[in-house]
């Protein structure tokens, strides 16, 4: 069932779109880097973590959905029970991970004198709010792309992971900017 040519043909257009978005987001980050560095250095450390966890959670969810669709245990329906349970578990895992890492980052910041006047409580609540918004979005995108690609006869394994990691990277940064207003 696997053909290397099909993997390449499925992959190339999507990877190019993802590349374009990633480059644009990278430029945006470069533009705002100075402001972040001088005002909120703690959030600069947080960016790869917020983006990474969002993408990772989405790719776990996507891999499960893709396997479920291939095997036939998950049906293309928004009422699918297994899909619901997998989504809820992924979101819960995401929230726990974000909570744990936000405290870790704050401690690293404290140790390096980067916390400035941000309190632990406000950092953790901001970090968690961004995280919850992001994983909510990633979950929806993950389910929708898995269902649509499978329905169209494209292997969801080829599609969901690139799409959700790109969404994680781009919207992670956009939501962060929205929250801290730089």
């Amino acid at each position, binding site marked *: 069932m696997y053909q290397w040519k099909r993997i390449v043909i499925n992959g190339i257009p999507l990877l190019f779109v993802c590349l374009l978005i990633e480059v644009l987001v990278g430029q945006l980050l470069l533009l705002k880097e100075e402001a972040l560095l001088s005002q909120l250095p703690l959030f600069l450390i947080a960016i790869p973590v917020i983006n990474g966890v969002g993408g990772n959670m989405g790719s776990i969810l996507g891999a499960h959905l893709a396997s479920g669709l291939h095997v036939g245990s998950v049906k293309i329906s928004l009422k699918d029970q297994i899909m619901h349970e997998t989504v809820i578990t992924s979101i819960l895992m995401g929230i726990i991970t974000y909570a744990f890492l936000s405290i*870790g980052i704050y401690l690293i910041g404290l140790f390096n004198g980067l916390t400035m006047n941000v309190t632990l409580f406000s950092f953790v609540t901001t970090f968690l709010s961004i995280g919850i918004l992001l994983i909510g979005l990633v979950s929806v995108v993950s389910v929708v792309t898995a269902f649509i690609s499978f329905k169209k006869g494209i292997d969801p394994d080829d599609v969901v992971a690139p799409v959700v990691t790109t969404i994680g990277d781009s919207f992670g940064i956009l939501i962060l900017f929205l929250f801290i207003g730089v």
Partner: protein
Amino acid sequence: MILKQMVKQSLPLLILCGIGGIFTGSILGSMVDIFHRIPGLLVVIPGIIALRGNISTAFGSRLGSAYHLGLINADNMWNDALKQNVLGSLVLSIVVSAAIGLIAYVTTFVFFQQQVNLFFLLGTVLLAGVASGLLLTSFTIGIIYLVFKRGYDPDNITGPALATIGDITTMLCIFASALIMEVIV
């Protein structure tokens, strides 16, 4: 049952990968010198890292489905399903790396009015793409083998593990390739 397994296998890994993410940032920080010497290089970093991650997580995700479909397992690893997947991922790596090198060349020319050595930039990105592609394909097979042996569900492991290992490997490969190309050119 599946959910309990998912939390047990994925949650520690998600946290560990988050910690990995904090360190990846600091590796990038220590490479600042070489970016100053080679203007086009910084532009390609986010793209090449993201694409590397995308190619290998998709690869891992396909192997997860192949496992659930019964096409591959610990006793039956080196079969056509795996070979097609490996070949597909490697070809994607090469094609996409070449494209990134060209995009970097054009963007530095258009946006920064700086002419970088095309041969150098393309060479660095291609070398890094091929090297990290080969390394990550081997890591993927290694991880999949361990996951099968331990009876874990690959879907819980491959995404985060490959994304994190991918980031670190790719960054080191870009760094090493740039150093090698500096010696050659």
